[in-house]
């Protein structure tokens, strides 16, 4: 099984390398990439099947030592292990990733046809799928961080795939930079974990925490560490306040938006929190829940007024991810992961549906120019409708099951702790979701076509594009998850597949309801469910009222959408005029971009300019000053050389010349003169050495 996991991890990488290298030579190489993905899908289904049936309770890991630093001076024994972890969550996640990736590949064959960089597009998809599988399958946080950055890179490449457009190139950069902010937090969190526990492996860290070994020996620092790692999730899952990159990321090709920015990569943040859920303390969970609630609420209000079909879906994605994060924050772990799966399917379906519409309308994305497409594109319409119904939380759909659980969870949490704002936000957002999704459907598919010319050219998509839509919409129906369309708790997904997490954080830092009732029976870190009876009871009693309330609110949202846009009982224009300021506030996305431009971006620019000034005046001044001093000194040394040293040398030469001049007089060439010299010198020597 580990072998299959390794193979399906590296298959997309093989696809990426082959497609990238041979892409310019062989036109049909993208079939290879698709084939590889098919194998990956098959492998992941086999793994999930075997894991869930035969090894349901087991956690299968396989690791090898990557770097052995031996006995280091300060840290002691350090080994860095890499490895693969297959538990129920990663097995399920692998199926989701591979299935959606495969369907997106199929969809892209038609959608991207005629693109000049056709094969490269598929290569990037392969790189992304490889990185995403890495995040899902890893058993240590270091490897997760590496793949975390790799999905960032592939996301950047795919958002800016049409980089000739400036907006697309900018959006790619924005996504990358905003993600970096969160990733720094995650990196610091990882470093804190590593310095404390000397290992990156999740399981080792968790075991040490459950034995009471905390970072800096305090629960407060455990909270901080959890939140720092959560910062990575805030960036990747586009949570408030780092959500600004996701709507801009819609500049990428639509299938990419479906795969990366709706179903899988943005869910990686949620997956990360799922992985570290056991070490979260009550304080960090509360902050996570607040971030999640804000991320559910703010983008939902923005989505109400957007006119770009993809932007509405993007804000809806942020909002749904906020739901998941909030669910984790309030302790509804199972439902958070359940919602991740269901959301992946119906949101991918919505995005691919919007891709189908955009393709048919020749890259028209403004819903004000659409309308009446139901007759032209029945398959797209009905799949889109099913997915919208699912996201709105209407019974008989998967979205109803998971979202209802999250709402019930937040309600139970509120009953237990008194934070009633979470269920209120949750229910309100459920209504908003229903409203903006049906606004989108009515404006796109119902009514009269508002742009006749484009409408005439629109046509139903081909089989390769329609098939993924159908598959995904079928997966949005309840019977895949549970036999009971009202209560999913006894279905196989929640009772059998997704296990309640083990909790490792010290009990005095947890919420009371997350501490098991009978301390004596439960060993720390054992397989027992670590939730208390109180929570289960609260969840149980709250479930029916929560369901009815959410149904009513979803119905209200859908009704309002019909009143506004289908039957036109209420004049939208007048309403907009009445609440002009509120409308503009939402239309301009709460001025987040403007605020960031004014503060962070401008601040950075100012700081850069200031530093530039500092550089050009002070640093350059010091350098120039040094140069000036050196120059002066050199001039002096040069003068000294010229005058003193050269003077000495020249003097010596002159002296020699002078002596030579004097002595050449003696060199007459006449024998008799020499003889006289000899005689004279002999006489002189005689007198010098005379002994008398």
């Amino acid at each position, binding site marked *: 099984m580990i072998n299959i996991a390794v193979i399906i991890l590296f298959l997309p990488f093989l696809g990426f390398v082959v497609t990238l290298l041979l892409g310019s030579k062989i036109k049909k190489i993208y079939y290879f990439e698709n084939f590889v993905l098919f194998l990956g899908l098959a492998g992941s289904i086999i793994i999930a099947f075997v894991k869930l049936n035969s090894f349901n309770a087991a956690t299968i890991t396989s690791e090898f030592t990557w770097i052995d630093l031996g006995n280091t001076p300060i840290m002691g024994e350090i080994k860095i292990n890499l490895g693969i972890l297959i538990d129920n969550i990663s097995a399920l996640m692998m199926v989701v990733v591979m299935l959606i990736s495969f369907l997106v590949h199929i969809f892209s064959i038609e959608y991207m046809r005629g693109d000049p960089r056709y094969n490269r597009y598929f290569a990037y998809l392969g790189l992304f799928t490889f990185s995403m599988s890495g995040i899902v399958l890893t058993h240590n946080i270091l490897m997760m961080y590496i793949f975390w950055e790799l999905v960032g890179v592939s996301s950047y490449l795919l958002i800016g795939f049409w980089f000739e457009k400036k907006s697309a190139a900018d959006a790619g950069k924005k996504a990358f930079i905003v993600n970096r902010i969160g990733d720094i937090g995650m990196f610091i969190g990882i470093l804190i974990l590593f310095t404390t526990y000397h290992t990156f492996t999740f399981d080792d860290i968790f075991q040490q925490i459950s034995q009471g070994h905390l970072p800096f020996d305090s629960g407060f620092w455990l909270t901080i560490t959890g939140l720092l790692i959560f910062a990575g999730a805030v960036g990747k899952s586009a949570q408030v306040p780092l959500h600004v990159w996701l709507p801009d990321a819609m500049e990428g090709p639509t299938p990419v938006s479906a795969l990366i920015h709706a179903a899988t990569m943005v869910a990686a943040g949620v997956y990360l929190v799922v992985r570290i859920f056991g070490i979260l303390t009550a304080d960090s969970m509360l902050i996570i829940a607040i971030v999640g609630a804000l991320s559910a609420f703010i983008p939902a209000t923005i989505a109400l007024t957007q006119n770009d079909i993809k932007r509405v879906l993007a804000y809806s994605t942020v909002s749904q991810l906020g739901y998941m994060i909030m669910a984790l924050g309030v302790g509804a772990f199972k439902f958070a992961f359940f919602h991740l799966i269901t959301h992946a399917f119906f949101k991918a379906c919505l995005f691919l549906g919007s891709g189908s519409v955009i393709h048919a309308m020749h890259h028209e994305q403004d819903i004000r120019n659409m309308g009446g497409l139901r007759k032209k594109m029945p398959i797209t319409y009905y799949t889109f409708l099913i997915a919208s119904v699912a996201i709105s939380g209407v019974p008989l759909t998967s979205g109803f099951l998971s979202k209802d659980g999250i709402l019930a969870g937040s309600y139970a949490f509120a009953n237990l702790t008194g934070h009633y704002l979470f269920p209120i936000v949750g229910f309100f957002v459920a209504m908003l979701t229903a409203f903006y999704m049906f606004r989108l459907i009515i404006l796109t598919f119902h009514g009269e076509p508002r742009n006749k010319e484009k409408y005439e050219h629109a046509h139903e998509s081909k089989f390769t594009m329609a098939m993924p839509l159908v598959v995904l919409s079928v997966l949005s129906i309840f019977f895949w998850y549970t036999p009971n369309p009202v209560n999913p708790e006894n279905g196989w997904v929640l009772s059998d597949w997704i296990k309640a997490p083990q909790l490792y954080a010290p009990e005095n830092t947890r919420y009371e309801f997350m501490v098991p009732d009978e301390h004596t029976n439960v060993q720390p870190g054992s397989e027992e469910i670590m939730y208390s009876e109180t929570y289960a009871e609260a969840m149980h009693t709250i479930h029916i009222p929560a369901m009815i309330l959410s149904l009513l609110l979803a119905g209200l949202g859908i009704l309002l959408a019909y009143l506004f846009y289908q039957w036109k009982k209420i004049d939208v224009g007048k309403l907009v005029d009445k609440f002009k300021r509120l409308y503009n506030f939402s239309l301009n996305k709460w001025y987040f971009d403007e605020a960031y431009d004014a503060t962070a971006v401008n601040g950075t620019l100012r700081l850069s300019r200031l530093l530039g000034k500092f550089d050009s005046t002070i640093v350059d001044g010091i350098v120039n000053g040094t140069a000036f001093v050196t120059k002066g000194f050199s001039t002096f040394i040069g003068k000294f050389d010229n005058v003193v040293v050269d003077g000495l040398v020249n003097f010596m030469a002159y002296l020699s010349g002078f002596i030579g001049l004097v002595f050449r007089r003696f*060199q*007459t*060439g*006449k*024998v*008799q003169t020499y*003889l*006289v010299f000899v*005689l004279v010198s002999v006489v002189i020597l005689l007198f010098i050495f005379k002994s008398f």
Partner: protein
Amino acid sequence: MIHAGLTHFLIISVALFSLGIYGVITRKNAVMVLMGIELILNSANINFIAFARFGNFGLQGQIFALFIIVLAAAEAAIALAIVLNIYKNLSNINVDEMDSLKD
């Protein structure tokens, strides 16, 4: 009758030597210079003989004198040959004009 001692011989020798030097230095003619050299050699001979006569050296002085006479003959022969050659080249034998070694 004055007894001729070593000093007298040495005086004659010095006179001869000085004459020889004077000849070598002042004469233009190369042959005359050679004759000066002969005088110097002979003054040396007188010295040798005198010291041999009055000293206690045995026959060494006389033998040396004989060698010097032979040597002087050989020297004269070679030098005259050189002078002849100089005459051939320069058509005179003036010593003060032979200064081509100067440069």
